[in-house]
Each structure stands twice: as structure tokens, then as C-alpha cells.
């Protein structure tokens, strides 16, 4: 006899005894908090949004002296404010996309669609992180350039440098920037790697069936 048929016979005929959960216990469960992966991902995305928004807003929260220095470096350049406004618009766009993606996640979808929807939210957050890393990289490069050109103190210092010293300083800046970007990237790989390892494994298993 087929193994599964034997199991099916048993499954239907001799229902295993389960300790029944009482009505009161069910009521209590309804008010407990879910610890689902979607909830965890949701909190992480909120944390991501806040973290990068705060990082972008540092100039506005810092001392007047710092603000003055920023203004001097960028010389109240309108391009600087345009870039800033665009970056906030992009953050708003990401908030909207994430909100929509989370609203679409429902446990009543098929197993495959549910997985796809969760993976989509992770993709949005991933793009958000890539976007921020690119921005951080660009800001660091542009910031250094503007600093050297417009800040008299830094300009003086660089003026006194010979060619080798300039190359070494630029090299150090580039290495630090790359290390920052790389470390952030590794951090996300590990974080999401741990969180969605099982989901990815199961999703691949389902996809394999379609080949």
C-alpha cells in the first residue's frame, strides 16, 4: 500500500487527540501581538526611513555655527536646496510605495503570492538603502569637493600640499567612503539574510516547481 494512503487512512479515521483550546483562551489570543515576519520587516522599514531622514536632516538640527559653515561651503547655492527637496520627495515616494506594498500583504492570498508580496516590500527597502548609499557616496565626494574649493581653511591646507599629499588625501577619503558604503551593505545583507532566509528558501522551492 502507498505510504501516504496509509497515513491518509489514519489521518481521517483516527483523528489525533489535540488538547482543545478554550473559548476564553481564543479571546485572549485575539488581543496578543503578532510576531510575524511582516511585522518585523515593517518595523525595520520604519527604522530605516527615520534613520536616513535624521541623517539627512543633521544640518538643520545642528548648531548655528555648523549651519553657517554649511552655508559658506555651499554658498546658499540653489542647486543644494533643489537636491535637498528632491531627496525628500524621493523619501516620500518610498514611504508611499512601502505603505502600498504592506497594505497588499494578506494571509488569504496563495502561498506563492504572499511570498512575492513580502519579497516586494523587501525589494523596495533594498532600493531605498541603495539610493541612500548612492546619495551618501555622492554627498561625501561633492562635500569634499565643495569643502576644498569654498572653505578657506581647507583650501589653504590643500594649497600647501604637494601632489603626492593631495593624491594620498583623496585616496584616504575615497577609501573611507567606500568602506562606509561597503559596511552598510554588509550589515543589510546579514540583517535580511537572517530574517528572510527561510522565506527565500521556500520561495525558491515553489519557483523550482514551475520550471
Amino acid at each position, binding site marked *: 500500500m502507498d505510504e*501516504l494512503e496509509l497515513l491518509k487512512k489514519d489521518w481521517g479515521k483516527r483523528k489525533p487527540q489535540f488538547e482543545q483550546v478554550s473559548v476564553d483562551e481564543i479571546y485572549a489570543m485575539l488581543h496578543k501581538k503578532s510576531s510575524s515576519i511582516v511585522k518585523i520587516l515593517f518595523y525595520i522599514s520604519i527604522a530605516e526611513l527615520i534613520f536616513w531622514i535624521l541623517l539627512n536632516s543633521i544640518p538643520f538640527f545642528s548648531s548655528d555655527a555648523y549651519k553657517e559653515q554649511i552655508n559658506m561651503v555651499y554658498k546658499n547655492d540653489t542647486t543644494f536646496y533643489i537636491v535637498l527637496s528632491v531627496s525628500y520627495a524621493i523619501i516620500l515616494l518610498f514611504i508611499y510605495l512601502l505603505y502600498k506594498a504592506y497594505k497588499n500583504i494578506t494571509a488569504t*492570498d496563495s502561498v506563492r503570492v504572499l511570498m512575492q508580496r513580502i519579497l516586494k516590500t523587501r525589494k523596495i527597502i533594498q532600493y531605498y538603502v541603495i539610493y541612500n548609499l548612492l546619495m551618501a557616496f555622492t554627498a561625501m565626494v561633492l562635500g569634499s569637493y565643495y569643502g576644498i574649493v569654498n572653505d578657506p581653511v581647507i583650501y589653504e591646507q590643500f594649497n600647501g600640499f604637494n601632489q603626492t599629499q593631495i593624491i594620498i588625501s583623496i585616496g584616504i577619503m575615497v577609501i573611507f567612503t567606500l568602506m562606509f558604503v561597503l559596511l552598510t551593505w554588509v550589515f543589510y545583507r546579514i540583517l535580511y539574510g537572517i530574517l528572510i532566509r527561510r522565506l527565500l528558501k521556500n520561495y525558491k522551492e515553489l519557483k523550482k516547481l*514551475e520550471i
Partner: protein
Amino acid sequence: MDHSLEHSFVDLLGKHQNIVHKVCRLYTNNQDAHNDLFQEITIQLWKAFPKFRGESKFSTWMYRVALNTAITLYRKSTRTLNTQEFDSIQYKIEAEPYDDTEEQQLKLLYDAVHQLNDIEKALVFLYLEDKNYAEISDTLGISEVNARVKMNRVKTKLKTILNP
């Protein structure tokens, strides 16, 4: 909070709770994990309940939410899993006069099913619940042909586990 909605949900879940227990049985290895998963499935069912329009049977709707929770939404408990505990406490099969060899074979079968991956377990579960391939493919989101092919592979895999 709509109390009548809550009341009808608790009433329905109370009646059909064995479905949730059975899913927990397949996807967990001990009593603590079983209870954790039961709670998470209940929460997910409750969250989805306002959208339940009665187009399908409550039990059919439950299969989907319960499996989705077990496979995708639930984060496995970090507690150490002890398969011994699983066998001895929760899932004693009702004692009827029964053939010892068949009893032994069943025990081995349940152990073998536990060694399958999450998707294979879902297939086995729906098969054991007497769902046809149309329903299985609909629940998992794969084609009917693929569901059949996979089911045959699962049968072969079970055979291999049982007769290494």
C-alpha cells in the same frame, strides 16, 4: 471593536480548531512551538476575518491562512527543538486495538513527513485533508500539473526516507 464579529469568529475557530492543530502538528516539533504557532495562526485568522465573506467555507479559508502563517509569516521559535518531546507528550494516537506493525509504520511515516521541507509538508497536509489538485494548486499558487508532479516526487521522497 465589533463584539458580534469577535464572538462569531471565536465560535467558528473553536469548532474548527483541529485544522489549526493539524497544521501546527506538521510544522512544529514540541508543545511550546505548537502553542506559539497556534497563537500566531489565530492572530492572522482574526486579522483576515473582516474580509472573510463566506464565499468559501470557513474551513477552506482557514487552510490558506494557517498554511501561509506556518510557511511564511511565522518566525520559528528559538527554543531548542526536541523531537522526543513531540512524540511523547502531544500527539498520542488514540489507543484502539491496532496492529503493532501498522502502528510502528505510522510512527515512522509521521517522522518521515517531519523531514520534508515546508512546501512538501503543505502538499502532504492538503492531500491528507482530501483536497483535490485544483484546491491544492490554488492554495499554493502553482499549476495543477506541477502540484501533481510534486506530489509524486514527495511520495518517492517519503519512500526513500522510509527505505534508505
